[in-house]
Each structure stands twice: as C-alpha cells, then as structure tokens.
C-alpha cells in the first residue's frame, strides 16, 4: 500500500514533468557529462533489466521464460511504445527528436512498469522492480537534463499522462496480461539498447567541455 502510494505520487510527479522548469543541477553540469551519465545509466539499466527480466519471466512461468519464446505482438500491446522503428528512419531523426522520443517512451514505460510492480507477488522481485523503476525514473530525468543542457525543449502534452489511469485497460485474462508484461520488458530492452547507442553517438558528437545554451532551455 505504501509503495503504491509512493508510486502514484511519483507517477503524478512524472506526468507533470513537462510543466516543470529545467533542472538546476543539470544546468550546472556540462552537457557532455550529462550525456555520459545518461549513457552510463542506460547501460546500468540494461544490465539490471537483463537479470530482472530473467527473474520476472521465470516468475511468469512458461512459456514466457523459454529462451525462444517469441509471440506475435498483439494489437493491445501497441499502447506500449515500440522501439521497432526502422533503424535508418531513426537515425535520420534529429537529436532533439530522438531525445524527445526517448523521453516520451520511458515516461510511458515507467508508468506501465509501476503497474506491473504493484502486481508482483514476491517481495524480492518487487523490490528489484521498484529499484529498477527508480532507476528508470532517473533515466527520464537524465534525458530531460540532457535535453535541457542541449537547449532542446522537453516534449509536452501527448507524451504526458497515458490515456486513462495506468493499467486501466485490464487484460481480459491472466495470459494476456502476462503477455503484456512480456512485451513491456521486451520493449524496455529494445529501448534501452537503442538509447545506449543514441547516447553513445551523442556523447561523441558533443564533447564534454561544450557548454550549451541553457538559458534557452529555461526560456522554454
């Protein structure tokens, strides 16, 4: 119950992010450093998710924990932001657009993840999920910080609160719900993998010493 309250609060706070001004602390850090930190965090989340996903899929039980389990993506899973955009297309986007897409995707994923966390039965797994959630929230913040430091506006509006309360479209049955969870983790993995590449590229593009237009970010 306690954690549920906290998560609700955090979700609320997250949903209100676009309204908030840019972070002071990220302003003070160089953009390159922020990018590096975000990259590290992405790697860290990837690493965490690798073990967490294994544990969670085991928790879901077969067939989800089978290594070659590759179900078709259901229509209802579409609400989970998909990273399956064409690579060339993705590369063709501007940094800003990519960052914004990342930002939106993680914000949405975080909300779903928290729903998932609330349903987990074992304390150990819940704890790890909670930790992962917190880290993921940190990633969202970091991306926001990077965008601020690079002078990009934070994505607004549609990326904010998901339609309806999280988990509102309840799965018609347990298996489908598990399928949702499976896809959630799978998408997370894909996103994190791609984000890591993005930030690595961005890191190379923006030397650590560069001080970007932070005033513009605030002006937004």
């Amino acid at each position, binding site marked *: 119950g306690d954690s549920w309250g906290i998560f609700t609060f955090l979700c609320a*706070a997250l949903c209100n992010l676009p309204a908030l001004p840019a*972070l002071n*602390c990220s302003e003070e850090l160089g953009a390159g450093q922020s990018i590096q930190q975000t990259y590290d*965090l992405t790697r860290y989340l*990837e*690493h965490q998710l690798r073990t967490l996903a294994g544990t969670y899929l085991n928790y879901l039980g077969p067939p989800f924990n089978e290594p070659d389990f590759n179900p078709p993506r259901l229509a209802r899973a579409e609400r989970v932001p998909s990273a399956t955009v064409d690579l060339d297309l993705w590369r063709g986007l501007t940094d800003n657009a990519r960052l914004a897409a990342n930002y939106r995707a993680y914000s949405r994923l975080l909300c779903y993840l928290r729903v998932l966390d609330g349903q987990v039965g074992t304390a150990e797994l819940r704890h*790890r999920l909670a930790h992962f959630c*917190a880290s993921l929230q940190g990633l969202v*913040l970091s991306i926001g910080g990077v965008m601020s430091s690079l002078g990009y506006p934070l994505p607004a509006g549609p990326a904010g609160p998901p339609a309806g309360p999280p988990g509102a479209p309840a799965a018609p049955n347990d298996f489908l719900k598990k399928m949702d969870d499976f896809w959630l983790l799978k998408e997370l993995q894909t996103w994190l993998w791609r984000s890591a590449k993005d930030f690595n590229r961005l890191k190379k593009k923006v030397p650590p010493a560069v001080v970007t237009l932070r005033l513009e970010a605030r002006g937004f």
Partner: protein
Amino acid sequence: MFSRWNWVACGFYLVLNICSPDASGGLVQSCGHIIPESPVLALGSNFTALCILNESCLDFGNIYASQIIWKIKNRLVPKEQYREINRTVSSVTFNDTSSLATPLTCNILADGQIEQNIYGITVTVGLAPEKPKNLSCIVHQVSRFTYVMTCTWNPGRHTFLDTQFRLKYRWPEAVFPDCIPKDVNNSCTVNDIQFFVNTEIWVEATNALGKAESDRLVVDPIDIVKPLSPQNVSITSGLLPTVLQLSWENWISDAVMTLKFNIRYRIAGDTNWMEVPPEDTASPRTSFSIQGLRPYTEYVFSIRCMKEDGAGYWSDWSEDKTGVTIEDQPSKGPPIWRIIDTSQSPACWTVHLIWKALKPYEANGVILQYELTVRDKSSLSSPVKKYNVTGTNHTLQLREGTYEVTLIARNSVGPSPPSVLLIPASNSKAPVKNLRTLPKHDKLWVGWTAPNNYVLKYVIEWCLVSSSSDCTIEWQIAQGDVQGIDLKGIKPFKCYLITVYPLYADGQGSGQSVKAYLKQDRPSKGPTVQTKKVGKAEAVLTWNHLTVEEQNGFIRNYTILYKTIDGNETVVTVDPSKTEYTLSSLTSDTLYTVRMMASTDNGSRTGPDFTFTTQKFGKGEIEAIVVPVCLAFLLIVLLGVLFCFNKRDLIKKHIWPIVPDPSKSNIAQWSPQVPAKHNISSKDQMYPEGSFTDVSVVEIEADDKKSFSDQDLKPFDLLKKEKSTSEGHSSGIGGSSCMSSPRQSVSDSDEGETTQNTSSTVQYSTVVLNGYRDQTPVQVFSRSESTQPLLDSEERSEDHAGGADSTAQRQQYFRQNGGQDETNTDRPCFERTKQITHASEGDLVGFVQLQISGQSSQPLGLGMEKNTQEAAVSNVLQTCTEGQTVRPETVEENPLSVDEMPKSYLPQTVRQGGYMPQ
C-alpha cells in the same frame, strides 16, 4: 470560626488542584493558571509568565494578585521580578532563562502567612539546533546488487532538547523518503540507492526551538562507492619460474562501473609488501601475471579495487592468498671450505670438507644432492674421485698434497655452477695484512688489507673462544675484491678468534688471526689474589688469570690495591700478562688488605679482599740472634765445666767432705747396737739411710774368723741391700735371698731369737723399687716363696759345727744355678754375689767412684780381691745357699763391672789388713 473553616476548605481545594494540575476545567475548578503552559525556552532568552486567578476564588478565598508569590522549585523568585497587572493577574519576568528550573509555581500567601500553591508549570530550557556540518556520504557495496549509502555529519552542539535529524535526498523531480537515524544523531544509512543520477543530499535538524539544515551535497552515488574487494582470488604458477598468475572475480559488473586494481605481494614470512605498479592494473581485468619473482618461493598476494576513474573509495584488501613459483636451477654453487686435521701424522691428512647449504633464493628449489669431485693435482695420473653427498660435509683421508675440490648442488631442475676449492700442500702464499675489527651495531666488521697478488676469495673463519670447550669454527667466504665483511650473529661480551685466509688461483695464503669483541663489558668478576710468600717488608702476590668467559673484554691491566687498616690505599698497576707481583716497602708486622682489580676498556671489577700480615723479623734475623746466643751459652758451659774439672778437688772438699764411715771403723765392730732393725730393714728397704744405720750396727762377735768373712761380706750385703732397694733389676730372687741371708746369718749367732722371730714374720725378698736419687728404677722383683731362710738359720747353726755340709750345699746350689758359669764352678756363689754386688756398685758409681778414682790399680785390686774372696768363699756359699736362683741376666748385664770391681773392693782389701786408712 467561619473564616477558619473557609481557609481549610480553600487549602483542601488547592491541594486537590495540585494533585491534578491538568484537571482545570474538569471536575475540580482550579483557582488559577499560568500562561504559558509548559513552555520550551531558548537558553539565555528572557521569559515572562502570567498567573491568572479565577474570579470564583477571589470571592471564595478572598485572594488577590498582590498576594501571589512565584517559586522555582522551592526557591522564592525575588519580588522585583513580579508585576501585578491587575487584581487577578501577576506576571514574573526572567531576563535569563538559564536561572529557570522546573517546576515554576504560582503560590498565594493567604493571611500573609500561609502559603498555598495555585498552579505550576514545567519549563524546558534548551537550544535551537545548529546547522549540521561536514556531511559526507559513502556507498558501501553489500552484495553483488546491493548498495547502501551511509552519510555522516557533525550534529553540532548539544541542544538539551529532543532534536530530530533527518537525512534528506532527492532528485530534481523526485523526493525520496527521509532517512531517520536510529539511536545516533550523526549518521544514517539509506538502503536503496540509485546510480548515475545526481542526488541532492542534506541533513535537517529539528527541535522545539527551531530547525537547521546542512549544506546540500550533490553527488552521483556511483562516484562515492566503496566496492567489495575482489573475490575468489587464485594463484597459478606459470611455465616460468619467475611468474605467477593471479586471477579473481569482481563483485561489480562492468555495466555498473569499471574498476582498477592494486595488487600487492610479499614473500611468505616477510613483512614488507611489494606492489605491482598501479598503472599496470589501472584497467578492468580479472587476472594479472606478476613477473620478476624468485624461483621456488612462496608469495602472498592480496588485491583491492576501486572505480576506474578514481572516484570513490578503494575497497578493502582481499584476503591473503599464497602461491609458490616453480623450481629453477641453483643460481650458484655452495660456498665450500675445509678443515685439515694433521694430528695423526703430518703426511696423512684428514680433510673435513664443509660447505654451506644454499640460501633459498640461490637454491631455487630442493637440493637433492651435492656432487663432490676431488682431483689430486700433484700426481696427474691418479684418478678423479667423485662422491655424492646429501649432507653439507664430507671427510676424506688424503695424503699430503695439492688437491682441487669441485662441488655442485643439484635440484630437480638441474645442477648449480661448480664451486672450486684448491687445497694446496702448504699455505705458502702471502697472507692478508693489517687485520682489524670494528663493532657496528650488532655486527662485527672485519677488515684487512689485500696482499699484492690477485686474490680469488677470502675465507673468514671465526669462533667463540671458550675456556671449557673447543672453538666451534664458523666461516664465511668473501669475494676477492672486498676488504671487509660484517659478521652476523656475534654475541656481545664474548671473545671471538677471527682468522682470514686469502685464496689465490694457485694456492692459499696463511691465515692471520685477531681476537675481537663485538662489545666489551667490565669483567664479571675480579681476580682472586693471595700471597705466595710474605716477608718483613715485602709480599709476593699471585693470582690466576680470569677465564675467557669472565673477562668480557680485553684485560688492559690489573690493578693491585693494598692498604693497612688505617692507612691510605696504595695502587699498583700491573701488566695483564703477569700472574705474580711483589709488593715491597711494606711495614713489618702489619696487617695488610689487598685486592685486585681487572680492567677492560669498559670498566673494571675488583676481586675479593685478601689480608696478610707481614713478618716481624726478616729472613735470617732470628737465626742471626739465636745462633750466637747458643754458641755463647755453650762456650760458657764448657768453660764452667773445665773450670770445675780443674778445681774438682777444691769443690769436692767443699761439697762432699769426706765423712768417715762408721761401719768401717774398728770401733764399730764392738758397738753394742742391737740389729733389731734388721728385720724391719728388710721390710724397710726403701730407707737406705736406715739400712746404713743398721749396717753400721751389725757386728759379728762370736768368731773372729767367721766375723771376718762376715765382715768381709758386709759391704756386699750393704750394697746388696741398697741395690735391691734402689734398683731391683740386678738382683734376682736369689739376690734378695742372698742379701737377707747373710744378715740373718750374722745375727744368728747372738740374736737367735730375734732372727728366728724375724725370720718367721719377715716376708722374704721384698724388693722395693725406688729410684736412687735421680735414677730411674727399672727392675722387677721376684718374691721367694721359699722358706729356706728359716731352714738356713737352722742349718746354719749346724754349719758352725762342720763345713762339709756347706760344701755339699754349695754343690747343691751350684746345680741349682745350672750352668751359669762353668769356669767358676768352684765358686759360683761368690761369683754371683760378686756380680750382684758389683751391679749394685755400678749404681753407686757416683758415690763410690769419686772416692776411689784416684787410688786403685786394677790388677792389684783384682788379685787381692780374688784372694780375699777365695778365703771368704765358704761363708759366701753359705749365704748363697739361700739364693735359690740366680738370673743369668744379672751376670751378663754388667760385664764391665768386673773391671770396676777392684775399685769397689779396694777398701776391703785395705780392711783385710785390719786397718782402715780413714
């Protein structure tokens, strides 16, 4: 009366109020209250309290604000601090809250006397919290995935109040639950920590008086991590003997953070760590090869890690792990030396080859055996001898000569380079020069000057000199280019004998030795000194050298200290090689105390005191005095004797005037004296004077002829008596009988009765031993059991009638005498008597001899005597009948007395003529 009850009621009411202070508004209405209720006050601030009385009480108890008094605990607050605001309100003001205490009470003084409590409050005084300072955080890795962040801070001064600290941390958009310290106020641990996001951390301190916040700390927790040390450290030895590979596992995934490492290692048993250069291990890895190690050596390793970029903290060192490098060939040959024993015969050596086991870093493994090769260089034809030895010594019997010994140590990998020792026939080469030692802390440095020739090596032998056991030789080899070496393991205060031999390529120099101490001390005891000889003015002192163990250093000198009891001490320094010293110029006959001190460079010690007294006289002094004195005395004596001899006549006249002998006077022959005492005298023989008296009285009156012979016998008788009295040795029993019988026979004729009487009562032959004058009595006496005197007296009365009987008796006696003297068979008794007499006379020499010395001519005397005696034989025989036995000794004892006889009997001869010349 009413008012009194009223007061009692009021008091009761107040008591109730006190008992339930917070019951105001409850059942019992309080008479007043204080504002503020339970204040918390800052220390040092000012404070005002109001006591408000209830209107009801005013009416009931007739009390007003002016009667209020304030108390802190039981102490009255001074009236100056009160203020009556109106008739129901009184205030009290404190300028400094530090004077406050709990409880603060509002009381009323009813009737000016009775004090009643209205209300009380508790006052809490404290401080607002200070701003916490020095906030610092560290993230500890607890397990592979678990990290906790512990932050510590300085909470500042004590507030005296309940102050709550909260550790707050947040992200810009997210707030995390506060961390509330448990039991402490200066640290808190956050269990869930997120990396790679900058986190703002601060501490908030809150109490009733205020709130304070520390400075904000913004940090990415990944930068303050103290990781766990690497686990599962393992060591594998590689192919090379100098390399070990260290491998481990990290607790932290590279995705979390990359690590750099520190590796340290040491030889097992050593304490000093060596470290792998940090730049070699500054990148993430799980293994590392350490090179440049010693073969066959056990190493201990440990490793730690931290974030690669240096942010954060080093982990603890991992647990020590050990690994051993593999073996390698021994790096050098063992040092070898020899001891040659030629005690059996100079030509036949017993050579003890000794070598030192290689040090572990030289052996590079386990030495399995030593291979010894001995080559006789003096005769090329003789074969090379080889020995395999497992110990570190080998003894050979060799003929005198030059040998080359080669030693190789072998381990499982291979052999060492050979060590070569040349044993020459003689150590004829140049020795080292200027051998010297110098103590250096706990080592003894031995230095020398190299000989002119090129020296291959030096061998330094040393051993601890001991008086009780042989020197156990230790040795060491130094290279030829050094001229000094430190000896280790040298004990202080011990004497070491150090010998250095130079070894040349073609021979060996003779050894030079030096004695040395690492450290000297004063001797452990002083020498014990004693005198060997003491004279009048000098004394010879001796002592023994201290043993090596007692010396504790080089004895530089001995010091002799001697003094008389009250005199000053005299000090003499003596060379340490001596063991004897002569003290001279001493005072004679004086007690001296002497002691001796042995000195080393580091002090001295004195031995026990020894006392002696010098002699009073010097050597020969006594002799010089005594000998002349004795000589002088002797001379004086001699002179005196000579003088006396010359003047002997004169002296004799004065000292021994010639007293006429009454017994020899003719007148005495008819003296009417009764020889009654004869009987007594035989008993009383110890009084010779009496005997003389008796003798002088005895006379034979009856017959002239007989009396003549009797008379003639008298002197014998006398002498016999004397003799038997004074000295019994010459008179046997027979002698005694002879002695008594003539007397009896003499007295027989006229005093038959008496004689008879006497004979019957007198005990015969009582010989009283008494020394004559200064002479010692020697002899024994025999006592005759015989009753013959009685018979004799009877027979003798018959004898008067006829001599034939006497002849027969004589014969008989003669037989009894048995072979005494066959030549004198015709007059045995005479002979015997004469002898006896003479024996007695011999004793009387001092008496008689002087008397007759000048007179007689012996031949005459003897002849005359013979005649006389011949004539007297019959009487004598008669007398002799009484003597039963004659001891032959008597005769033989004084053979010379025969010669003297004439002297004794000369007067008789004279008397024979009937004339006494006196």
